């Protein structure tokens, strides 16, 4: 099965890191994958997006117009990309920054998570990206949570490996919230 996910936020939210992490997890599972980043020339504050495809066969286009899933972390991304998610798909929305507005779609699974607050609960606002990717993996099964956690060693530079346990905790927290949301929907 093919999984395509589009991720967007502003520079500094860790979009490119979780895109990388997902691709490394896919490689660990022996799958094919492409990770395609597109970002502004700014290091922080500019727009950061990436598309990750996980496939059993050949990865076709690394660019996807209507992805099956999206992770949207800031209001600008919501405005630009929410409408593009394929009907029947999944959208994980950072409700800490994105207000519930007139935009709603009944043809999607939309999971609104207060990622900033959840990240602060476990000690560091910067973990919001890991919570989002944990929820994504849990809901789609694109990669296993175990592969995602193992891939932290590939995606993070050596000097940051001491933070792996905290990131694992964030991934688990995201997955737990996804499961709870699924339970509530059922």
């Amino acid at each position: 099965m093919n999984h395509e996910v589009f991720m967007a936020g502003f520079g500094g939210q860790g979009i490119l890191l979780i895109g990388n992490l997902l691709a490394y997890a896919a490689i660990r599972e022996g799958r094919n994958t492409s990770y395609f980043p597109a970002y502004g020339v700014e290091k922080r504050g500019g727009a950061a997006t990436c598309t990750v495809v996980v496939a059993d066969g050949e990865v076709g286009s690394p660019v996807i117009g209507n992805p099956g899933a999206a992770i949207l972390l800031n209001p600008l991304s919501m405005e630009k990309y929410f409408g593009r998610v394929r009907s029947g798909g999944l959208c994980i929305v950072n409700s800490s920054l994105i207000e519930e507005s007139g935009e709603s779609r009944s043809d999607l699974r939309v999971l609104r998570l207060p990622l900033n607050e959840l990240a602060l609960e476990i000690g560091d606002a910067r973990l919001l990206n890991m919570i989002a990717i944990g929820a994504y993996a849990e809901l789609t099964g694109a990669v296993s949570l175990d592969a995602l956690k193992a891939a932290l060693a590939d995606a993070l530079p050596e000097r940051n490996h001491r933070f792996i346990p905290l990131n694992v905790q964030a991934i688990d927290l995201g997955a737990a919230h996804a499961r709870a949301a699924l339970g509530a929907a059922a």
Partner: protein
Amino acid sequence: MQKRLLVKGNEAVAMGAIEAGCRFYFGYPITPQSDIPEYISREFPKVGGTFIQAESEIASINMLLGASACGKRAMTSSSSPGISLKQEGISYMAGSELPGLIVNIARSGPGLGGIDASQSDYFQAVKGGGHGGYHTIVLAPHSVQEMYDLTMLAFDLSDRYRVPAMLLGDSVLGQMKEALIPHPYVAPADLPAKDWAVSGKAGRAQRVVKSLYLGDGELEAHNWKLHRKYQEMRERETRCETAGLDDARLLVTAFGVTARIAKTAIRMAREEGLKVGLLRPITLFPFPDKAFADATARAKRVLCFELNTGQMVEDVRLSVSRDADVFFYGRPPGAGSLPTPEELLAQIRKHYKD
């Protein structure tokens, strides 16, 4: 199981070059290809290579000319505006029959343009970007694996024909990461010895590497010699990937990253029952014209898809069967987004006829 790594396209070029025995790199930084010199500058000291960040693109192409004249496997890399600056040196290399690899991770133009992916350097790459009516070998990878594989092939073809080779990528291929199986380089057993290299004449006759021919009839003879090599490459070295040609009613053709977008669009079209095939040129020079002639003996409609306003389509039109219709879809960079498979699918539906 073979080792599979997640690698960025630019790094795959650098890895392929080192594996193929390239030990001389000369370049000047420019986005979106600077990962290549970055990787090489880190890894060359471990293998005894020489890395020089030159004072300019023009200096670096002439350093490449010099290293190649000494018989060494050598390369440079840049992106579109930088490649323009190198054209004089490339012409001199072509005239001097020197091998060498020039990597263009293309961005958008003209002029300084922007850093978006673009295929607007097709004409410059395949028609001889400098003066004097020469060709370079032009290879167009469409995946990270091919960034690695075709870098190796480019060195081999360049050495075999003593013609400079260009690897033509773009900023998507340079920046994206995919699985790479870094297989070992095996030199072709029949690569000719570099018995022309100016390596110090002690104990042997003098050798001369030059592109200046002033003697009566010399330059004409030299140009005919170059022409024969280009003809020989056209006969022997064209490469392309095809799929679904058996029953295709419409043929989609694209190179590089647009071929990736095309593959997904073709899969979507097939799911709708449309018989659509793919012909992806891997060598842009020599152009796989016979493959187009053969494929269009059956499929009479061809849709050429490029990230520009129409360049390769001219070579497609020259190559297809006389009664085939050639359509074009493309757009220049700068829209802030790349064309999507869904967008190309709409074009496939538009031009498809059962």
